[in-house]
């Protein structure tokens, strides 16, 4: 963890609106958060909540319709042309499907070298050394596998190559969009450990987007929970999981399955499905499924309020924060 607590990325009121048959759909409806230098922010939510769109909007892979994205003080949403391209070298994205995010007919070393070749920052021998170094860092032997084609690799290896490619320009911020969800548990653990090692080595800051609550908990310092285009709760990973303040977070955690037959069964499951973002509910977006909802929730949109240090929740009736551990503590070895 870094000592310097300055935000590397600060996102303010980000909105992304898509038009479907002329109807406006706000996939991201006013999201604000900061990521400190050297920190990992986990972004969780169910499919369709806008977590991937948020990640893409930061890179301007999709255009934000409103709001600002400050990376080291530079507003990405205002940049264009060359300055946008150069800003993008400071943040890189790793995608969900490792196999389709690499060109199957290109050689591994060329894939990793592409960002370097675009920017011509290093050439010749220096370039080759850098690529070999990157590949060995991610656990791919450059002398054996460097000349192979991407199609010859398994999903886990492809994800390693993607990581090497994303690190080639020495980015500050990595946006990992569901980067382990297509992998088997044993490979997933390898990639997560690799990510933690590289984060320490390269001093990276991460935005880790995933739907798997256990995976997010294992890598994140802070976690933000999204529902229908808005962040409903954001706070330190351990306290947020131990004592969620938003009813949605509580349901989400209750539905997460722990690989332990003795884990408590949560009798209450969330009924129904998220409403369509084309026609979101008035006021609080979760009110249609929330057991505690009142008329106030329909009339007034809840604003983020601090319920504990660094723990913000957007709810009129936040759950009480308790600090004694409710989760099963694992046996000490």
């Amino acid at each position, binding site marked *: 963890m870094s000592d310097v607590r300055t935000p590397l990325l600060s996102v303010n009121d980000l909105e992304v609106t898509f038009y479907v048959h002329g109807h406006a759909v706000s996939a991201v409806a006013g999201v604000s958060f900061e990521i400190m230098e050297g920190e990992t922010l986990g972004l969780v939510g169910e499919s369709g909540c806008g977590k991937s769109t948020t990640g893409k909007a930061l890179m301007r892979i999709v255009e934000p319709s409103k709001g600002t994205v400050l990376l080291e003080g530079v507003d990405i949403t205002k940049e264009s042309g060359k300055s946008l391209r150069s800003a993008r070298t400071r943040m890189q994205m790793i995608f969900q499907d490792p196999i389709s995010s690499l060109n199957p007919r290109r050689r591994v070393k060329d894939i990793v070298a592409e960002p370097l070749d675009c920017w011509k920052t290093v050439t010749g021998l220096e370039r080759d050394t850098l690529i070999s170094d990157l590949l060995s860092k991610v656990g791919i032997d450059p002398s054996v596998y460097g000349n192979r084609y991407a199609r010859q690799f398994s999903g886990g290896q492809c994800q390693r190559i993607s990581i090497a490619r994303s690190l080639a320009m020495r980015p500050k911020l990595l946006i990992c969009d569901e980067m382990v969800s297509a992998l*088997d548990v044993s490979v997933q653990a390898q990639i997560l450990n690799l990510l933690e090692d590289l984060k320490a080595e390269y001093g990276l800051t991460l935005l880790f987007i995933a739907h798997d609550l*256990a995976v997010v908990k294992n890598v994140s310092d802070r976690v933000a929970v999204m529902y229908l285009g808005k962040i409903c709760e954001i706070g330190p990973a351990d306290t947020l999981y131990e004592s969620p303040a938003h009813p949605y977070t509580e*349901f*989400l955690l209750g*539905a997460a399955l722990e*690989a332990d037959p003795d884990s408590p069964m949560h009798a209450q499951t969330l009924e129904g499905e998220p409403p369509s973002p084309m026609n979101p509910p008035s006021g609080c977006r979760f009110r249609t499924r929330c057991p505690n909802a009142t008329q106030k929730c329909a009339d007034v949109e809840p604003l983020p309020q601090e319920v504990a240090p660094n723990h913000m929740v957007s709810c009129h009736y936040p759950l009480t924060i308790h600090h004694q551990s409710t*989760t099963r503590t*694992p046996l000490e070895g």
Partner: protein
Amino acid sequence: MSDDKLLVVKDLTTTFATAGGDLAAVAGVSFDLERNETLGIVGESGSGKTVLSRTIMGLQPRVNTTVTGSSIIDGFEVVGASENEKRTIWGTEVAMVFQDPMTSLNPVMRIGKQIDEALRVRLGMNRKDAKARAIELLELVGIPSPVQRYNAYPGQLSGGMRQRVVIAIALACSPKLLMADEPTTGLDVTIQAQILNLLDELKERLEMSVILVTHDLGVVATRTSRIVVMYAGRIVETGTTRDVFYHHRMPYTRALLESSPKVSNKSHTRLITIPGRPPNLLNLSDGCSFAPRCKYATDQCHLVRPELQPSVEPGHSFACWNPLPVNAEATLP
């Protein structure tokens, strides 16, 4: 005694003739299933769990596939039976819920008709009775306003709703055994909890047995009474769910459990990984398939394949030359 079992699988082997040679996706698998029991089949991708579940009910591909051994469902020998003979048990004795609800439904056929089809073809119902029964089934699986939904197309339903429709089709002819192959993979956690609760509830209500095939240890932990762990086409450990989770003897089972991230872990918990990746089934050694990745492996492990042997608890067996000590529980992380 054995007449009482719903399913008896003995030495079942499924071999595919591939360009690279014969590939035994399932190799000598034996287990049985009581009535009204839920069994979990767990393994990583390529471990043969899907091929096993399909072979059990005779759904393996027709070409380039050889099946030997025996799979007896309620007295009916599936292996060697003709398509016409197998059709007499499909639906009424055994039915399957496939992984992907997007592709297992016909996108241009109303969902009601897809449920009717089974009722009319298999049970010889007339149009009117079939429709009434289909609406009952939609209600049974928890689809709101079933009369209106009867006329919906799959594309008009969400993933969770589609999976409910697939379950309704599987239940149409009241099977005694329901096979669910990754029924919740690809669904959100809250929807996953709904579907698993539904399967549990239906199992009790309709007095079925369920085989839950999954890669997710969290899914089987609280939903099954027994577990079969597969690796490279073979059963490496089997026993009651509690025995497999807490008293496992096979190092692979331990490694699989250790490498899954847990919600109860502190943030930045380092995961214990399994080095390497699953073996290529085309050139398996004569020894234990897990030996190349196993830290306890000895020469014997590489040369001679261990057979399943009983552990101390009744019904718990494992295939390993150097099993973990009996009280392995104390050293769990």
